[in-house]
């Protein structure tokens, strides 16, 4: 028995054409957020158990890829206190004790919260700054530093970084970053969902780092 395959031809081609290689679409801006946590590979997880005190400047430092830019773009500071509160609550919950920022009496670790004011590609790069967080910095830096030993290909504008650095080895202008957490793009736009995006993103950063805990 033989049959003309015209109907099958139409059905087959229509079926093949209707298939999509990549079904599903991004349904909200929050789905583009990504939380990352990176431990310095040279720092064993056990080292975080020996940390007792930390200091955290009361500002979010805006980071720019171009230090010659005298009019750098602004990103919102509406959420600074909210972000810092979330970070402090997480670190406190891990058993670490917050102390005042005092270069004469440095803590075990310094927690720096930074936001990428402009999309940066290549290695992360931090301009010199001082603990007051002004831009551009004036006078000598207490903790100027250059890229930590972590390379990230791109930070989108509005990305948030939380970095634990060891202030005790800053003598050669290169300090040791122990750990970095980041939430990409979360401050790139402001909207009703920004607070929940920040909370979800920061929660995930610490969930990804269970070794951040004092003995």
């Amino acid at each position, binding site marked *: 028995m033989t049959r003309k395959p015209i109907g099958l031809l139409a059905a087959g081609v229509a*079926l*093949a054409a209707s*298939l999509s290689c*990549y079904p599903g679409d991004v349904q909200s801006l929050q789905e*583009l957020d*990504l939380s990352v946590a990176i*431990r310095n590979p040279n720092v064993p997880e056990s080292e975080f158990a020996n940390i007792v005190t930390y200091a955290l400047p009361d500002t979010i430092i805006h980071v720019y890829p171009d230090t010659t830019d005298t009019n750098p773009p602004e990103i919102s500071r509406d959420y600074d206190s909210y972000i810092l509160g979330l970070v402090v609550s997480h670190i406190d919950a891990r058993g670490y004790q917050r102390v005042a920022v005092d270069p004469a009496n440095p803590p075990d670790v310094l927690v720096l919260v930074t936001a990428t004011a402009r999309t940066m590609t290549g290695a992360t790069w931090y301009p010199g700054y001082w603990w007051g967080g002004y831009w551009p910095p004036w006078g000598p830096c207490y903790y100027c530093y250059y890229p930590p030993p972590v390379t990230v290909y791109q930070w989108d504008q509005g990305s948030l970084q939380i970095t634990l650095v060891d202030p005790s080895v800053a003598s050669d202008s290169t300090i040791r970053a122990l750990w970095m957490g980041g939430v*990409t793009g979360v401050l790139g736009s402001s909207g009703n969902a920004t607070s929940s995006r920040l909370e979800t993103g920061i929660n*995930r950063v610490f969930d*990804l780092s269970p070794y951040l805990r004092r003995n």
Partner: protein
Amino acid sequence: MRILFSAALALALSGQVAAQTFGRLYYSTAAPSGDMKDYIDQFSWRGITFESGKYVRDNVTAAISLGWTVFNKKTDEPVSIGDAAAAQGTQYRYVNAFPILAQLQLHRQPNRGADMYLGLNGGVYYIERRTDVSVVSLVSDNWHFGLAPQAGIIFPMDYGRSAGSIDVRYNHAFEAGGQSYSWWTFSIGFAYGRLY
């Protein structure tokens, strides 16, 4: 690859139908198994399979089988990156599998009822694996050698003027590029040419 698949399908179906030849077109669903379930564990409703061949004996057929199955999953599972890094965000995971297989089937002696068969497919699979997370896409694609045992039934329709077919097969694409894949395919379709 999708364009190539559609073109090959159109070309094969538009050929002359000889007395001993047949073609079968299936809508295919699929269930991941083995290691593949660690990446995507969701059932796929997106697939198509086409076979074209001939009866080399009364109860033996040889054919070429082409297929396309799309697996996808949305998840926010955390991912470890080496020993020191981890990430979490909404991931869209995709596996597009295109089997290109030679096929031999042993049929039950033809009669007026349904025709049951067992078969073995062997050949290559082109498989693309893609993970979209944030604004980044991680893509790996490889050609895999693979095997696919199968069983099925061809049954008459429309008072014997056409036929339907149900097919079940287990696909295993051997490791290439550090990844292997396996899945079950459940297909239903139509046949033309020599039906049974």
